């Protein structure tokens, strides 16, 4: 049963990575930039939800909505103020700005909430632990919700991008920004919407992350952000199913690596697998290799 235990935990952790990775991959695919601050938006989402639950005594669902709303606003504002002026600039310049934004958010959180780790209330997830196989396998409520949330989000996003007008606009902008604007698509608006969705998802990811791993500090979003970015690249950056696949695989590999090989080397194993996969498939698992015209 330990194997199944680990598998479930792996899928759960992977689901969190997948949700975060979706935010990265969408923004990369459409705005062609690496939003380094994404992990920190997650952290902010978690803190806001924490405040709502703990200090303002809001019920869990309302806290979720508040956090999502706040993060959405945050994402759109960040994009408008810091990234949009650099739309034409070299990608390295935007990356550095994103890094600056990451520092900004981390230090803002530090100022507002202090450096002491907060304990995320378990009351957020009110689903009890499920017992399977006659008590042999226990799945925590948080774990279950995470996996379900991931599936729901994945389905919703896929439907959104393929069926709705905005979704199609997003795909156009990601293919050819110039042509899209010539076709009458409002590129600025489309990119803002992308950031809005990504940030809303970040809030969800933050809450799920802290429900399973209750310690919350200003640096909480940093490492999961990096790993999720790795997952997005692993699955093929710009590909939504790739982010999902990459995230899940990464979570499973991390848990299994820590369980069966070594706890300290857990991260190293994850990164090593990434490297090996990229060597074999340089554009990621589901990525499309870009042919350069000579």
């Amino acid at each position, binding site marked *: 049963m330990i194997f199944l235990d680990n598998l479930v935990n792996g899928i759960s952790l992977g689901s969190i990575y997948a949700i975060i990775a979706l935010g990265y991959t969408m923004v990369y695919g459409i705005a062609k930039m690496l939003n380094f601050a994404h992990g920190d938006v997650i952290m902010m989402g978690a803190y806001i939800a924490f405040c709502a639950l703990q200090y303002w005594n809001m019920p869990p669902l309302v806290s979720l909505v508040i956090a999502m709303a706040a993060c959405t606003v945050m994402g759109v504002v960040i994009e408008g103020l810091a990234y949009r002026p650099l739309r034409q600039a070299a990608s390295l310049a935007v990356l550095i*700005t994103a890094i600056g934004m990451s520092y900004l958010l981390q230090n803002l959180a530090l100022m507002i909430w202090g450096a002491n780790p907060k304990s995320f209330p378990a009351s957020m997830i009110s689903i009890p632990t499920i017992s399977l196989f006659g008590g042999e396998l226990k799945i925590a409520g948080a774990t279950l919700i995470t996996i379900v949330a991931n599936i729901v989000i994945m389905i919703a996003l896929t439907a959104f991008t393929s069926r709705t007008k905005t979704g199609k606009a997003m795909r156009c902008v990601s293919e050819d920004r110039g042509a899209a604007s010539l076709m009458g698509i409002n590129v600025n608006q489309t990119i803002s919407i992308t950031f809005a969705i990504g940030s809303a998802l970040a809030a969800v990811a933050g809450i799920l992350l802290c429900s399973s791993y209750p310690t919350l500090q200003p640096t909480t979003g940093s490492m999961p952000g990096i790993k999720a970015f790795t997952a997005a690249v692993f699955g093929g950056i710009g590909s939504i199913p790739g982010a999902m696949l990459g995230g899940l695989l990464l979570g499973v590999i991390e848990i299994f690596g820590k369980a069966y090989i070594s706890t300290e080397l857990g991260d190293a194993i994850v990164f090593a697998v990434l490297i090996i996969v990229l060597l074999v498939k340089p554009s990621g698992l589901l990525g499309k290799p870009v042919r350069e015209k000579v």
Partner: protein
Amino acid sequence: MTRAKRNRLIYNCVTFAVVIIAFIVLQGMIENKTITRALKGQLIPICCWIVMAVSLNLVIGISGELSLGHAGFMSVGAFTGAVISGWLLNAHGMENETLRLVLAIVGGGITAGITGVIIGIPVLRLRGDYLAIVTLAFGEIIRNLVNVTYIAVADGHLVFSFLKKNVPDGARMLVDGASGAVKISKISTFTMGFILVMVTLIVVLNLINSRSGRAIKAIRDNRIAAESMGVPVTKYKMMAFVTASVLAGMVGALYGLNSSTVVPSQFTFNQSINVLVFVVLGGLGNVLGSVISATLLTVLPEVLRAFADYRMLVYAVVLILVMIFTNNPTIRSFADRLLAPVKKLFGGRRSDKGGAQA
């Protein structure tokens, strides 16, 4: 001498002059005891970050590859340096600090260089963003590996163990897993820091202005064209990458031997990102720029200490504002028009634009 060659010569001379003059001035302040304690403590770190920034600029600015794991090479150098120095002292009773320092630095450079080759071979085949994430991954792997490495001196020789601390009783620990390098005897000097900066400048500036440097830049500008002219891409990308890793390793040893303890968590991707910021703010490919930005940005957090809690916040805001102001086309062209008379003074020959520009 052509105008381009003369401008390059002036640039190189200014770069060396700035460093030499700074060294003489600071050394004077040390002798006269007019230097503040805070600044004195910053001298060796400044040297380290200058070397890190210039060497990373070789990879990102000249070779055009976004490497996010540069701190990993620094850490390899730091721990190798600590081991070599500790071993020479405890197993061989070598009291001469300068000699130990030099050997530690050389050792740090060599191991970092070997690491650079091992990482470079797979990594440099990848495209831009993928290369970035893989270098970051390698940096984290190195950190993880040091966390589970135990090296000690017992009875005059080195004892290595991995994952489990398997050392005989009474052994003198050199590297203690997650606790890092412990009880280091601090032998780094500002003079050595200055020497390393000069070596780095000589190596990087001379490399850039040579046949190999041109090849590296050509590959950055247009890879297919460079290949079609018979320039082997992997060879020159490796050259830039490994040279940078050797320099980072050398200065890593200096950095490590400057504190009594060095822990692996000092060399996370955050550190790599810091160096990246130095490089971009100083200007990609601009060596003098890296020297200045590394110095300023190392000193700045200390200067901002007055703001205490707000200082990192201010740093972040300033960084974002600087990026927007230097990269937004509207603001850029405004600044260009302001600076036009200045540029004309130093400007190169304008081409005869008879026809339409492509």
